[in-house]
């Protein structure tokens, strides 16, 4: 595999720590006296708890306590103000009352001196329920869907204008629910340092947001809470909020007066930390004979829980991606008796893009226009929503780079026209876009008299290589080799940083680091006098001035440029698939992913990020699906043997290409985020390639062999 981009840039700085096991994740700390908590989950889906018998568990060896809704200490932030009514909807409250809202809902936590004893005792807790009728099937509940607050309907130009077009289609597209399935399980260690002082080690995408979340649940001053999360083994959106298991560990630690460790089991990871919602979509799309889009109508119904509205706006892509005068959207939620969904890599857009990019592909066949060409014809030169200019956009260049790399010219328009060793060959493409955000953040940089630089900011690194990015920026700015730079992250006491999410970290935290380095350099120049040089000998200047260190903390934020320009990052995925005509087996033969995300700060980790996202997209396309037995409301594939994510054998050579042209406005580095776009658009690219190979259009993911065999058996080639 050759890829020039991979050889440039720093290797992942903490890579060695991770592969040698020296990196310590949240579950790997052991404060003195630590004990273990294990949750007991509800076995019914809806109803109330009649009684819980925890006597046998309490008597089991090593057990310190069993906490249920019957004996849970009052959690201050859960209480309703006197005179006010309990709100109908809101964040799920752990051990608050006897209501069961979803299967697997924690009904007890057992605390024991060893994990094994806690686990065993948890199996002894027996609950009696009054079960009520539940519904977990989105398709059955569609008629009861309701518009979420804020983002429901929208209209630009005429509604349903696509119907007037000479070339048009209307189709339904369905994605199943998917889980984040990070390798590292969610885990927390909670330790009360005093009656009102708490330290936690927990898996989180944002230590300060977790701190603030805990502060509001327990009504504690936030300065009394210390949150640590130095290493995170993947999260993909599943660690952006304080979850019930974290509350359970904190409550338990208080009650037993010992630090409590709680690690979710893999099965709990399917029910307790969110998922990408099962979503039904319908697209009506029409164009003129020369391919100009006349109108798009995009409807979606996404699943949410019975107690909370989760709104991820999957229809947004149809408004924002292409130049089209008439776009109307309708988005609704359907409340099911399942725990709440949450953000998952490419939230909203990944779902919406499956529908839009599939529909566009279908249209291309009707029009007999190459799918890439069709997108170029409808290229949005300015933001179709606001009319603003884009801060930067090199999407046309991205199309060309990707098409050349995959060998797009080998694609035959007629489906099933190419075979290779008995396998059908197909090419497909799909695009993704995501807002390029920049938030407020701060960084402290400390130059020491031994010539080393320390960078501190609270941001988490959930895996993209944030530390490597930070060091790269500082190294270039300060003119220091990477070995001289240390960084300190994932600690809520460090300077302000938002949660790692929405692909915003490089633009946000990177900017703060850049600014802090610039400010520090300026201070050194002042100190050195007579103008100084651009890359001075920092240690020598400190010594000359009898200083042990010089430090600066700088805070940055996006400015008025955000009002002047529309800021997005774009991706284009090209896929070559092989499909076996008799058995319906799909193999990805080659994939090319191109990102237009401004200047690429850290090429090696960005490349990994692009490949990782593409693999997530391949999983979404070919295998990931949460399956529920609706009679019981219980998952039947809540483990890694049955819930499939891609393994090495599923992943071909993936070429990662960056346009790598700086955005002149977004931030001093010219960098935009790229984590979400790495995944968005990949699933439709695969589905489109499968169609090109077989003539079978799969509109409900995942594309497993049975769907290609269809009702009447093997495909005709």
């Amino acid at each position, binding site marked *: 595999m050759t890829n020039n981009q991979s050889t440039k840039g720093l290797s992942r700085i903490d890579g060695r720590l991770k592969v040698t096991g020296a990196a310590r994740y949240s579950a790997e700390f052991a404060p003195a006296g630590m004990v273990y908590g294990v949750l007991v989950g509800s*076995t019914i889906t809806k109803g109330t708890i009649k009684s819980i018998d925890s006597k046998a568990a309490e008597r089991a060896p090593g057990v310190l306590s069993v906490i249920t809704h019957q004996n849970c200490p009052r959690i201050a932030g859960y209480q309703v103000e006197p005179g006010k009514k309990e709100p109908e909807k809101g964040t799920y409250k752990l051990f608050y009352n006897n209501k069961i809202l979803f299967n697997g809902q924690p009904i007890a936590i057992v605390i024991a001196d060893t994990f*094994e004893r806690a*686990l*065993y005792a948890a*199996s002894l807790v027996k609950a009696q329920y009054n079960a009520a009728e539940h519904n977990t099937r989105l398709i059955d509940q569609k008629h009861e869907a309701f518009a979420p607050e804020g983002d429901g309907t929208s209209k630009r130009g005429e509604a349903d204008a696509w119907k007037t077009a000479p070339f048009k289609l209307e189709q339904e597209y369905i994605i199943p629910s998917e889980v984040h399935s990070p390798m590292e399980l969610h885990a927390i260690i909670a330790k009360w340092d005093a009656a009102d002082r708490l330290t936690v080690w927990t898996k989180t995408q944002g230590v300060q947001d977790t701190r603030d979340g805990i502060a509001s649940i327990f009504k504690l001053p936030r300065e009394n809470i210390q949150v640590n999360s130095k290493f995170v083994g993947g999260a993909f959106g599943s660690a952006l909020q304080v979850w019930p298991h974290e509350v359970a560990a904190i409550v338990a630690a208080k009650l037993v007066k010992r630090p409590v460790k709680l690690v979710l089991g893999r099965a709990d990871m399917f029910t307790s930390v969110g998922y990408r919602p099962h979503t039904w979509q319908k697209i009506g799309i029409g164009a003129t004979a020369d391919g100009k889009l006349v109108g798009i109508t995009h409807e979606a119904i996404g699943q949410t829980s019975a107690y909370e509205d989760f709104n991820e706006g999957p229809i947004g892509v149809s408004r924002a991606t292409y130049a089209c005068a008439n776009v109307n959207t309708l988005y609704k939620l359907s409340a099911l008796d399942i725990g709440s969904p949450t953000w998952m890599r490419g939230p909203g857009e990944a779902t919406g893009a499956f529908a839009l990019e599939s529909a566009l592909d279908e249209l291309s066949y009707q029009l007999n226009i190459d799918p890439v060409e069709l997108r170029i014809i409808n290229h949005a030169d300015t933001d179709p929503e606001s009319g603003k200019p884009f801060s930067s956009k090199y999407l046309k260049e991205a199309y060309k780079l990707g098409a050349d790399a995959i060998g797009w010219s080998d694609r035959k328009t007629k489906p099933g026209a190419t075979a290779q060793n*008995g396998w059908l060959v197909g090419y497909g493409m799909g695009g993704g876009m995501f807002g390029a955000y920049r938030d407020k953040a701060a960084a402290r940089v400390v130059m020491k008299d031994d010539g080393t630089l320390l960078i501190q900011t609270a941001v988490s690194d959930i895996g993209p290589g944030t530390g490597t990015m930070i060091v790269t920026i500082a190294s270039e700015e300060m003119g220091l080799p990477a070995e001289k730079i240390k960084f300190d992250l994932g600690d809520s006491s460090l300077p302000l940083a938002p949660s790692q999410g929405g692909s915003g970290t490089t633009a946000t935290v990177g900017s703060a680091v850049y600014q802090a380095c610039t400010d520090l350099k300026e201070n050194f120049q002042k100190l050195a006098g007579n103008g100084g040089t651009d890359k001075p000998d920092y240690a020598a200047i400190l010594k000359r001035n009898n200083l042990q260190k010089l430090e600066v903390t700088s805070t940055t934020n996006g400015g008025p440029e955000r009002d002047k320009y529309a800021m997005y990052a774009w991706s284009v995925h090209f896929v070559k698939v092989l499909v*076996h005509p*008799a*058995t*319906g*087996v799909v*193999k990805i033969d080659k994939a090319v992913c191109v990102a237009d995300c401004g200047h690429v700060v850290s090429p090696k980790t960005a490349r990994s990020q692009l490949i990782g996202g593409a693999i997530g997209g391949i999983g979404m396309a*070919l*295998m990931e699906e949460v*399956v529920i*037995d609706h*009679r*019981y409301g*219980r998952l*039947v*594939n809540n483990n890694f*043997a*049955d819930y*499939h994510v*891609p*393994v*090495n*054998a*599923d992943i071909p050579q993936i070429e990662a290409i960056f346009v790598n042209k700086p955005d002149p406005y977004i931030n001093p580095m010219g960098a935009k985020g790229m984590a979400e776009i790495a995944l968005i658009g990949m699933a439709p690219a695969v589905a489109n390639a499968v169609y090109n190979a077989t003539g079978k259009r799969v509109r409900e993911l995942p594309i*497993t*062999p*049975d769907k290609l*065999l269809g009702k*009447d*058996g*093997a495909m005709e080639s």
Partner: protein
Amino acid sequence: MKPFQYTKAVTQQSAIEAIAKPGVKIIAGGTNLVDLMKRGVTAPDKLVDINNLPLKSISLDKAGQLHIGALALNSTVSESPLVLEQQPLLAMALKAGASPQLRNMATVGGNMMQRTRCAYFYDTTMPCNKRQPGSGCGALEGYNRMHAIFGTSNKCIAVHPSDMCVALAALGAEVTVSSRKGSRVIPFTDFHRLPGDHPEKDNTLADGELITGVVISNNKFAKNSYYLKIRDRQSYAFALVSVAAALEINNGTIKEARLAMGGVAHKPWRLYDAEKALAGKPANEESFNQAAQIAMQGAKGYQFNSFKLKLAPAAITEALKHAAGIA
């Protein structure tokens, strides 16, 4: 997991004595048993670790019979030069199973004894006649995409998940077992059973019996055999359907054929009628298609697995084509 005792057997005799008592279970690689214990599906009082017993060898006797000890690792067997030369079908089937890490732990005896992966069997809150006789079958009207199309009963539609066993069934292996009562030999195709009224019984191994090994008699299939596994991802997934195909071909004519399927029944599903139909036929796609149609007689689909009625014959043809070298 319920607390349990653990002992290590040092001789075959002591192992046999230990397992003669109720509540005692053998542990070999532990890759299936420990999972079942964690999930509360099985809760033995005592485990007898047999990994120290001298049942690991792979050898060829004078009659050309291949002997494989019950404790030979799945990885060792799949890489053994003897196996690759004499019975490549077995090596292919083993390599198609699980992951390298699991195969490095899993043993031949344990593989035969592994239990179904049916979700209703694994989840102790759901009905399952195999786990709890009389509780009902969750899969019958539930999520039965992975389930059987042959030999089902209204008590159970689970499948046996092994790949290795499909090859051993096709090759007509024999199982050697020992107990207090002595030793006996069980034809491989009689080892696993259909669910009938007793789905709790996976096989015909009697209480207190230890599997000591398998024997595969000499055959002429080495040149023309193939194991095809159709699954939802390229590795580390159980079969939607799998086919073990072995042919003896003379000048383009099939002298003898062996066929067995995985992922379609409560036991490795030997396709005798299709084998008979292939004998004497030219080794071409037409013969294979015919055999595949014959093989499907009596198949019955359920709500989510009817696709297997189409996938299975396609897989049979495909496997035979590979075995014959015409794919």
